[in-house]
């Protein structure tokens, strides 16, 4: 569940995209945000679970929440 006071600065729809597009789109989206902003990404690529975690570790953009359901994977990034 999302914290009630959490503000999503940007929503990114990566459904139907395959490797490496979700990562590339996430990078592009997060670049346009300010430090501390939250980006929500929805993807359907099961590989994005491992890849988003790696992206987070390499770039210092923390995943503050993630979820899975109905074949969709949701990630909330806080821009570092």
């Amino acid at each position: 569940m999302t914290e009630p006071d959490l503000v999503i600065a940007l929503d990114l729809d990566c459904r139907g995209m395959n490797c490496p597009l979700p990562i590339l789109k996430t990078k592009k989206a997060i670049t346009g945000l300010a430090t501390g902003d939250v980006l929500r990404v929805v993807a359907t690529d099961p590989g994005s679970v491992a890849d988003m975690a790696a992206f987070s570790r390499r770039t210092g953009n923390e995943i503050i929440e993630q979820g899975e359901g109905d074949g969709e994977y949701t990630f909330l990034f806080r821009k570092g």
Partner: protein
Amino acid sequence: MSNGDRPTRMALIASKGTLDWAYPPFILASTAAALDMEVAIFFTFYGLPLLMKDLKASVSPHTNPAMPMKMPFGPEGFQGFNWPVPNLISGNVPGFDSMATSLMKQTFKKKGVATIEELREICIESGARLIGCQMTMDVFGFEKDQFVDGVEIGGAATFLEYAAESDINMFI
């Protein structure tokens, strides 16, 4: 993330120009850039045409025995079926390669895979260095103005100077 006082670096050699082999260098380079790495790709021999404005990369199943031959349409069982195509057919039927290329492109599109052009554009946008091999240009008769904007021209020493200061080095 950095190594000492510089970002992590990746140096790739792209030596193959078929559609299937065009993917690895552009996927790795665009992703590395997304992971805040610095990237250079040296395009040499048959990899050089991947820099052309008018990209014509295709596949040739005849010389690629491990390549699955599958259909991008129809019911799941039909799509999952690997068609046994004898070399006699794949090597001799006119238009077989262009048909296989078209099928592969359709499958990739359907599966949400980016095109080579898209990945290449992202590489350029994100500052990856694309280096065309001067010797290959001379041998095969390429001119710089046939290549996309942002390409630099160099030789083995240009690549090796970068590779010597890279953390990841791959020959593709």
